[in-house]
């Protein structure tokens, strides 16, 4: 049996907007096993980044629990939490904004060692240089770049440095929040391959957030589809892409442009994504769903296992 690295239960995160409550994430649960990747897809504003930030304890959850390597994260003391947090890291979409612009590449990568010198023990200059050089080799940044500043690097190289820094402390779990969205196709493939290689070498677990469904299919072992703060469908990747059950997932799959020789007709769904400030009553997708019945507008569907390992929340499968 594979070891479960992350076990999230009923996570909610509500923001206060004026006098109203914005349910950015509303009752989300998932498991991530060692060496696997959970892909998270969904429309802009569906709460993907918020979920990631709650799981990493970068912002406090409104309710719910996260168990990380068997320990209930939110119940630990401050210091224990800090130690555990070293085991989880994040890679952001905008590589430039996530690096320190006034520090050289090597200083950027060395930063985690210096911040955590108390626990790790102070490293000598030579040791530090060696670790940095190893990391640079690992992610494929040429050593000549050690002393240049981030703005002198291309986007792809910056992202490599960001990954190197995230991996500095040998984490078990890495959240990638749209790590390739701002990169060119040819560079995107390099980074995806790098992430896969690192996963194989170090048995990393990823939570991989992206807009691009093809990218998510390529890299994930399991996929969760989010809509307005809720997970509407979850399944192993192949299963989800071959037999999407939830109408929203089906629309999503149909909307993806495919490589074709003779051109294809596009057909968008009608309707706008509703405001997360007042989501529709009943099923949240009911304003845009073609299968919507009266029941859907009144009663919220329960999220349950419809087929083995395949979860969805839709009245069609009751």
């Amino acid at each position, binding site marked *: 049996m594979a070891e479960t690295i992350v076990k999230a239960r009923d996570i909610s995160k509500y923001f206060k907007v004026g006098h109203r409550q914005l349910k950015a994430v509303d009752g989300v649960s998932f498991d991530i096993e060692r060496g696997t990747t959970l892909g998270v897809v969904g*429309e*802009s504003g569906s709460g993907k980044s918020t979920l990631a930030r709650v799981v990493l304890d970068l912002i406090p959850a409104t309710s719910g629990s996260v168990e990380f390597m068997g320990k209930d994260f939110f119940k630990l003391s401050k210091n224990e939490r800090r130690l555990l947090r070293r085991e989880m890291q994040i890679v952001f979409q905008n590589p430039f904004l996530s690096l320190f612009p006034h520090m050289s590449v090597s200083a950027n990568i060395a930063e985690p060692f210096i911040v955590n010198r108390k626990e790790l023990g102070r490293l000598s200059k030579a040791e530090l240089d060696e670790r940095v050089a190893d990391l640079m080799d690992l992610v494929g940044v040429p050593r000549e770049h050690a002393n240049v500043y981030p703005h002198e690097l*291309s*986007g*792809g*190289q910056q992202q490599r440095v960001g990954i190197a820094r995230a991996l500095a402390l040998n984490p078990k779990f890495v959240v990638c929040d749209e790590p390739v969205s701002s990169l*060119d*196709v*040819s*560079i*995107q*493939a*390099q980074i*995806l*391959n790098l992430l*896969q290689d690192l996963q194989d070498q170090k048995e990393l677990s990823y939570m991989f957030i992206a*807009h*691009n*469904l*093809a*990218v998510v*299919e*390529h890299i994930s072992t399991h996929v969760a589809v989010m809509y307005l703060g809720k997970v509407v469908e979850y399944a192993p990747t192949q299963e989800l*892409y071959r037999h999407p059950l939830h109408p929203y997932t089906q*629309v*999503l*799959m*149909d*909307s*993806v*442009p*495919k*490589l*074709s*020789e*003779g*051109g*294809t*007709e*596009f*057909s*968008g*769904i*009608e309707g*706008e*994504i509703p405001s997360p400030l007042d989501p529709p009553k009943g099923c949240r997708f009911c304003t845009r769903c073609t299968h919507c019945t009266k029941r859907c507008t009144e009663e919220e569907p329960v999220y349950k296992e419809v087929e083995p390992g395949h979860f969805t929340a839709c009245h069609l499968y009751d």
Partner: protein
Amino acid sequence: MAETILEVNDLHTWFGKKKYRFGKRKGEFKVYRFGKEKGQYKGGKVIRAVEGLSYTLNRGEALAIVGESGSGKSVGVSTVMGLTHSGPTTRVTGRVTFKGQDLLNTVSDPKEAGLFKKHAAIREKEFRAIRGDQISMIFQDPMSSLNPTMKIGRQIVEPLLWHKGKLRQEIQDEKKRLLNEGGKEALKAHRKDLRMRNFARARGLKLLEEVGIPSPETRFNNYPFEFSGGMRQRVMIAMALIGDPDLLIADEPTTALDVTVQAQILSIIQKMRKRKNTSIILITHDLAVASSFCDRVIVMYAGRVMEEGSMADFIRCPAHPYSQGLLNSTPILGDERARLEAIQGQPPDPRNLPSGCPFSARCTKCMELCTREAPPKTQLTPGHNVYCWLCAGEKVQEKEADING
């Protein structure tokens, strides 16, 4: 024979270095200018953003321009639109013919172009008439191209009122139609609708409805910030289409949007194209979008064309190593490759292009000749051209012989 709408011939756009110096007056810029020698600036190298772009576009045809960021896709079309033109730090050469009209009357050889030669063939005013009326453009970022302080409705109708002549003509036509159908009575009843502003407004409303904005009457009086990203993009499309353009240039119209919204927007443009037989240039770096939308494709790299041809040819048998690399590194829904074949290396610095083929530094099939001399154009099948020494056939031997002998 299909009618040719746009013909671009050997277009070059070069940028020089801007350098800020304090002038006598406040805020005055002083800039370095082109030196006499080709490709040389005083104080810096030239960015050759576009090098020898040529294509023709027929009526109703859709052309995709794909390529890496910084490959000159946007500069290429903004030069065609006249938004980038020769100036103190910019040099444009080449020929752009739109429906027989010369858009930039320039000398084709950069050497011949004098230092401060006036390049504009038609006066700015006339150019503007063409730009808004017959060519329109959809930009990548809808927020920065909408005026945030102006109501949506006014922004849509404005361009119509710039081209009063055309509007007047349409009102006359409408009048005649009414007179024929309902006589003087009908004309009288519709007198208000025939006023220029009201007529334009009605057009705007109809268009908003066509691009899928619900309750356009109320939306007409909203400001851009009250719209979601996808809706703003639809407003941009409505604005671009209101003059019934012959040519629509869409510069990454959906890059920032969700897939569902992207599909919506593309389907709107597709329907418009069918109905009005508009020609389209679509700039994108998403091969899947390009392939499902366009008939023909141009692949650009570092300012140069690498391959051009029909979309079917390109997808079925891409000839250029860069095109092959692009296709191999694009993840596709439903493919079962465990690994993507990435193109190794980084795109070159635009200031410092390698001599010879610009792709040579990343190409796995690079030969010695490639790094020395730029590859010539080779026709594979009619309309399918590639710029690569691998496909050049006899020319390679000729060149080798030249060098050795």
